[in-house]
């Protein structure tokens, strides 16, 4: 809200050099202060609890409490109440507990708005319209009470502030048409013509213009919830709704009309005039009071404050002490408990003047660990962070979670995998000529099978292109299955692989399950070419995706004695079909416990051109033999190799190539 510094000065003396600091200390955040001829325009951002400060008077009142000064409301006309039922038929208490109105009859609206009003309004970014609207806005900016003026001659019969009995439409003074549902709070006449949404916006129908002769000025306390519901539902935020939502002073309605009357009567002749009142009991317009708890100040602030000082500050702010109770002023709608009083007192003292005291030391024992992330970094992965919503067509999950109000179509469902995000990153970087892309992300995926939502912590990595783009051409090679396997084995303790049948993002043939302790925890391999094509990626993408919640970190080690005797290495070469899975054979053989065999591993794989047609390959196995208690002789070695090769031939039906 923008307000002229000179306007505030009409209530309290100001120093333009310190005003920013003072307002900030009070919790009225100053966005900018800009010079405007002999004035300054202060732009203040208010927190939602400070409805009492949304006027020149309100801001000055807070400053006065801070400076230990008293200020007065501006002058206003005085008049006695009358009951006049010519204009209002009904006011529903659950919309408006306090309603005041002032009919002004036979007026001539020829006078222009006085300069002192239009100048101030312009400084507050309010466009002058005509003398009636301008004075209404002026009083709102001056004391915080919104008012509305109806052209009486456009009203059929009387006005009712009630919930609409049927669906209606109206055009607001902003020239927009609104369709109002049955049951919505409205201000309607006897012919069901809407003249305003209470506290939000007036209708064009009864808008005051230069030809208006008879005016009905309204000044009310509309319930904050009612106004809030209307303004959010119909997406209308006006200076009026903004104030009612935050709560206006429930004792200010009459004053606002009296003030309007006083200003208006100096510019146009007003005939006989009276002020009318409709009032209901309501929890929100009842004087609020509670037991004063002085001890809470020390407990919450951690410092000793003198009781006199606390009471003096609160009294300056308008609170009244009556025996052991504190009575809340009608403009402090937000204060409901002693905790609020603690804040009131501390902001007047100044948060920066409250001393610090150390928090007792305590060491956290269970720090979050980032083992897998750190290992991936060592392996060359760069961490990416993507939006967790993706385009609907990227998610192939039936149990997808779709947002009701997405920011755009390509961010409309929650991701069921981190792969679409990372594929997008490959596309982005490939377009920027990167030839080697190695990324990982950790984060949640979201699925909703059978109405239950699961957020699964997931680790996903992608490999694309060259292993390194800055090596000599003769040393360059592309990422392959060996890199992918090595990375997974390095990151996940006790991991192994098994055949996979493909899945949403992984290729049917060229993808594998990742197992840990023989339990499936994820998958890896080649990304489906159709998925890569969705992102216009030119080339193959290798990836892994692991459910982090399933990874077991326990990695028990049992020490094995080290032999003092030399190990012997023997190679045998097999001819096998490319579809035979040797990994499982090797794994089994390692567990078979052959005498003297320490380990067996694949040493080399060779595919010759003439064998390619048969899908055959040569695989060299390296067998390591060692004894714990002696050096092996030729006979030991030959016997061991013999039993191993026999198993390879018979048990696993593989052909050994004779040297």
């Amino acid at each position: 809200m923008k307000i002229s510094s000179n306007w505030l000065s009409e209530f309290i003396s100001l120093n333009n050099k310190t005003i920013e600091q003072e307002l900030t200390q009070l919790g009225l955040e100053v966005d900018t202060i800009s010079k405007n001829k002999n004035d300054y325009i202060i732009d203040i951002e208010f927190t939602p609890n400070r409805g009492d400060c949304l006027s020149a008077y309100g801001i000055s009142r807070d400053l006065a409490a801070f400076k230990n000064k008293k200020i007065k409301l501006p002058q206003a006309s005085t008049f006695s109440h009358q009951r006049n039922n010519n204009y209002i038929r009904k006011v529903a208490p659950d919309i408006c507990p306090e309603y005041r109105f002032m009919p002004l009859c036979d007026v001539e609206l020829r006078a222009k708005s006085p300069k002192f009003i239009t100048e101030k309004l312009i400084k507050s970014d309010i466009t002058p319209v005509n003398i009636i609207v301008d004075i209404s806005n002026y009083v709102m900016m001056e004391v915080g009470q919104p008012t509305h003026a109806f052209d009486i001659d456009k009203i059929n019969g009387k006005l009712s502030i009630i919930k609409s009995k049927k669906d209606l439409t109206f055009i607001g003074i902003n020239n927009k048409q609104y369709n109002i549902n049955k049951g919505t709070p409205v201000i309607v006449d006897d012919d069901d013509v809407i003249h305003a949404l209470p506290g939000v916006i007036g209708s064009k129908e009864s808008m005051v213009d230069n030809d208006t002769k008879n005016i009905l000025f309204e000044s009310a306390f509309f319930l904050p919830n009612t106004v809030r519901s209307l303004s959010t539902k119909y997406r209308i935020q006006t200076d009026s709704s903004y104030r009612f939502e935050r709560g206006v002073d429930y004792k200010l309605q009459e004053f606002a009309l009296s003030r309007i009357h006083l200003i208006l009567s100096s510019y146009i002749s007003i005939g006989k005039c009276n002020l009318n009142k409709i009032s209901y009991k309501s929890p929100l317009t009842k004087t609020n009071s509670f037991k004063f708890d002085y001890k809470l100040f020390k407990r919450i602030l951690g410092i000793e404050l003198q009781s006199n000082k606390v009471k003096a500050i609160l009294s300056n702010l308008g609170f009244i002490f009556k025996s052991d109770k504190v009575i809340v002023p009608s403009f402090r709608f937000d204060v409901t408990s002693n905790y609020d009083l603690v804040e009131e007192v501390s902001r007047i003292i100044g948060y920066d003047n409250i001393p610090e005291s150390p928090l007792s030391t305590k060491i956290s024992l269970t720090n979050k660990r980032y083992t897998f992330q750190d290992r991936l970094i060592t392996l060359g992965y760069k961490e990416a962070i993507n939006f967790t919503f993706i385009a609907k067509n990227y998610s192939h999950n039936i149990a997808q979670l779709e947002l009701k109000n997405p920011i755009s179509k390509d961010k409309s469902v929650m991701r069921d995998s981190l792969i679409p995000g990372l594929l997008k990153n490959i596309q982005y970087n490939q377009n920027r000529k990167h030839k080697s892309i190695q990324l990982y992300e950790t984060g949640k995926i979201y699925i909703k099978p059978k109405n239950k939502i699961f957020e699964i912590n997931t680790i996903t990595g992608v490999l694309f292109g060259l292993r390194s783009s800055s090596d000599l051409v003769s040393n360059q090679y592309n990422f392959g299955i060996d890199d992918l396997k090595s990375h997974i084995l390095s990151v996940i303790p006790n991991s192994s692989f098994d055949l996979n049948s493909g899945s949403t993002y992984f290729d049917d043939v060229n993808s594998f399950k990742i197992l840990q302790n023989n339990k499936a925890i994820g998958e890896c391999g080649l990304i489906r070419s159709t998925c890569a094509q969705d992102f216009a990626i030119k080339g193959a993408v290798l990836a892994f995706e692991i459910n982090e919640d399933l990874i077991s970190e326990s990695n028990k080690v049992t020490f094995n004695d080290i032999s003092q005797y030399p190990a012997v290495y023997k190679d045998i070469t097999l001819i096998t079909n490319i579809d035979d899975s040797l990994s499982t054979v090797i794994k089994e053989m390692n567990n078979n416990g052959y005498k003297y065999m320490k380990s067996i591993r694949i040493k080399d794989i060779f595919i010759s051109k003439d064998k390619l047609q048969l899908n055959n390959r040569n695989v060299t196995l390296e067998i390591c033999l060692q004894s714990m208690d002696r050096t092996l002789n030729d006979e030991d070695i030959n016997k061991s190799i013999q039993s191993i090769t026999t198993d390879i031939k018979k048990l696993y039906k593989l052909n050994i190539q004779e040297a």
Partner: protein
Amino acid sequence: MKINHTDLEDLLKQDLETCSKEHDLQQIKSKYLGKKGHVTILFSSLKDIPSEERKAFGSELNSLKQVITKLIDLKFGDIKRSREITQRLDLDTPARHHQFGSHHPISLVIRRIEKIFSNFGFETHEGPEIETEYYNFESLNIADNHPARDMHDTFYFDSNLLLRTHTSSVQIHAMENRSAPLRVLAPGRVYRCDSDPTHSPMFHQIEGLCVDTDISFSNLKWLLNDFIYKFFESKKIKTRFRPSYFPFTEPSAEMDVMFNGKWLEVLGCGMVHPNVLKNANIDPKKYSGLAFGLGIERFAMLAYQIKDLRVFFENDINFLEQFENLRES
């Protein structure tokens, strides 16, 4: 052995031609000049030669020996030089590139903050990102229709399910799962349906919560000042607290830090509102608590002098690789 001594030179040349290793050359040397070498044998045959021919043969043999020795020595030199060339380190060879990975700056900042607060006993507690109205709003004293909801442009799945708008939603979860006293830190993604150069629909926050029998606003100030000093590695950095408003804290404050002569808002904080404690079945008469929440992107922008929020989620390698040398654990 009958080797014509004039053929011996040709034989040696043949041998030398195929030889490239020092070891082989040594063998060639002994083949010709060794104890049983061709030249030595020829010399020992001198005594069988008639005396009138012996002198001429002897001098011829000597010159042969000289030629052979010279040829072998030359070869030794050749081998040595060629070895020097093949073994010379060529500094023009580009360094074999070790692909370095890098943590995302957001992760680095989260870890840095976790590390600082772990010294005060704060433990990481993660809550769900898909939340109910209750945990995101109501339990935090943000009633339906409260103007404070203006600050939370919320993504909804249905009328009750939403994407959390702040990590404050973890407060009640943490208090329900752990009993008081407690000290927790809740980092994570949060969402607001807002997108422009200064707002991202997804961003990161860290919520801190400490509940105990004697927690006060002066503790809050001390803790957060100490945090700022540690985070920015300077005790000279200026900070200030000013009143603000969050429905779930009372008093509420905003903390500003002075950068280049200007106050910059860095976090929101306050004393936990008694209603929030009650909602988590913690007696506000016995316990009090402090809470704070901060935006990770803001801290990352300050720490690494990043000016544009959007770079965080583009995952441009040219951006990510700038954090290669940073480790925070």
